[in-house]
């Protein structure tokens, strides 16, 4: 009797649960290492662009620098301001970090390599990325500091504004695919990547991801020259590190989203012999790396937007263009009878 109970427990819960846990670890551990090395890559690339050396002391070529940074941050004293709302103050960085990680549950890194292949993958990603604003706004409010609060207000307005045009861009892609499943979106790009037929949308989406991740030239929420780092100003030690890591994880996530929607995910650029020998994850990582390089390149090249310019770009430029493209794409697909005959 007890044997069968243990058997059902083992087969129904423990073994599948362990398998899921192993899947998650297999994704999260490389992701965290990638985040750590993204910080190093950013410093190295920025240094190269301004003819400096960048970090080169810790380890060969500065390769151990991320770990030195992590150790330094862990040993610092976590300071909680006396006027702060303690629970929310500690919760905010955790929220940012958690949201940056849980979105990866639906990202297919190669054919069939996905933790949860859900029907509404795109919507899930969009929902999680729209939640990212809470980490920032809660941090800004709970710090009980003017600079932090100003940063939080700016960031919430900015992220909500750019989500609108991002939504339209996603709708355009979905019109061409006929499914909300991320693997189906990648498979639909076997003939041609959506970056080519939907090129303007690709550009709009990429710029919107810059705004969504609070990166240059849209880094007003943490403008160091006017707001002394915005919503992060009261944070120290690991709380700060969680924000920092969450932001970089978000950058990788957004690059992954752009890759899946427009650059054909794990598919090789051309489906011929030397290219399709390589595993899908290689192409996926390569495309993400390329987009991340552009992220850093933009940081090195462009000055920060003024706040009204930012709002103008989002509402008066991107929104009309993306709305027009949704209508134009739908019209084109209907007129030439190209609508995907889905399920």
């Amino acid at each position, binding site marked *: 009797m007890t044997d069968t109970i243990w058997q059902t427990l083992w087969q129904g819960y423990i073994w599948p649960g362990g398998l899921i846990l192993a899947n998650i670890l297999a994704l999260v551990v490389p992701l965290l290492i990638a985040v750590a090395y993204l910080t190093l890559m950013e410093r190295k690339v920025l240094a190269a662009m301004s003819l400096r050396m960048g970090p080169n002391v810790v380890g060969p070529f500065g390769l151990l620098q991320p770990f030195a940074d992590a150790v330094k941050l862990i040993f610092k004293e976590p300071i909680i301001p006396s006027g702060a709302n303690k629970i929310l103050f500690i919760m905010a960085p955790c929220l940012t970090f958690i949201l940056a990680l849980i979105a990866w549950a639906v990202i297919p890194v190669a054919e069939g390599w996905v933790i949860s292949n859900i029907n509404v993958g795109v919507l899930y990603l969009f929902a999680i990325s729209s939640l990212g604003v809470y980490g920032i706004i809660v941090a800004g409010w709970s710090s009980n500091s003017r600079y932090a609060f100003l940063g939080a207000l700016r960031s919430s307005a900015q992220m909500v504004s750019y*989500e609108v045009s991002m939504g339209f861009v996603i709708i355009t892609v979905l019109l061409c695919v006929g499914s909300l499943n991320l693997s189906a979106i990648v498979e639909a790009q076997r003939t041609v990547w959506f970056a080519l037929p939907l090129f303007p949308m690709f550009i709009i989406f990429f710029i919107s991801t810059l705004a969504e991740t609070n990166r240059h030239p849209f880094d007003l929420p943490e403008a160091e020259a006017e707001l002394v780092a915005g919503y992060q100003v009261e944070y120290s030690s690991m709380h700060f590190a969680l924000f920092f890591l969450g932001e970089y994880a978000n950058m990788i996530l957004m690059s992954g989203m752009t890759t899946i929607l427009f650059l054909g995910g794990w598919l090789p650029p051309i489906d011929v012999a030397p290219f399709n020998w390589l595993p899908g994850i290689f192409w996926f990582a390569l495309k993400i790396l390329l987009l991340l390089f552009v992220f850093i390149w933009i940081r090195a090249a462009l000055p920060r937007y003024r706040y009204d310019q930012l709002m103008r770009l989002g509402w008066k430029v991107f929104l009309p263009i993306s709305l027009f493209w949704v209508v134009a794409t739908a019209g084109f697909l209907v007129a030439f009878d190209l609508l995907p005959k889905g399920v």
Partner: protein
Amino acid sequence: MIIHALAFYLFAAIAVASGFMVIAARNPVHSVLFLILAFFNAAGLFVLMGAEFLAMILVIVYVGAVAVLFLFVVMMLDINFVELRQGFLQYLPIGGLIGFILLVELLLVLGGWASVPHVASSGALPIPPPEQVTNTHALGHVLYTKYVYLFQGSGLILLVAMIGAIVLTLRHRPGVRRQDIAVQTYRRRDEAVEVKKVEPRQGI
């Protein structure tokens, strides 16, 4: 499935508890955050029912957009909520009445009591079983065929509300210097720069 039931009770319990905290919390910002928690658990309940599209839309629209603006406003308001609570007993009868009406309506829906029997039967359109279509497709098929006028009508109502909000807040202030990017980019060098020959010791 035990896990299914456990997840249901977890989501339901947190949703009810956070719903209570929305009205019980002293700090309005905490209230909004509890409201977000309640939305989130409602989305979880939708997922358990197999309505993943509705769950995601709930999170995107309510948590991702509406509640952000809500939080935005509440954070900037300077309300003394202790003062507002003074009128609690005064408003108790009408609040209790509304609560009672909502409760009765819920019970009517749950009890399946049909006041107009043919309406209930015509509302049930044959929806293919979930094994054949995803619920996004099923929802689209119903929404854009049978309920297309209602759908468009609700869209128009939202549009009117949006235009109304813009009309209420739009004001043209005189003397505001706006940036006109088209003018800036079309400006030529000979319009903007004047080259002068400056004589020594003369100045311009």
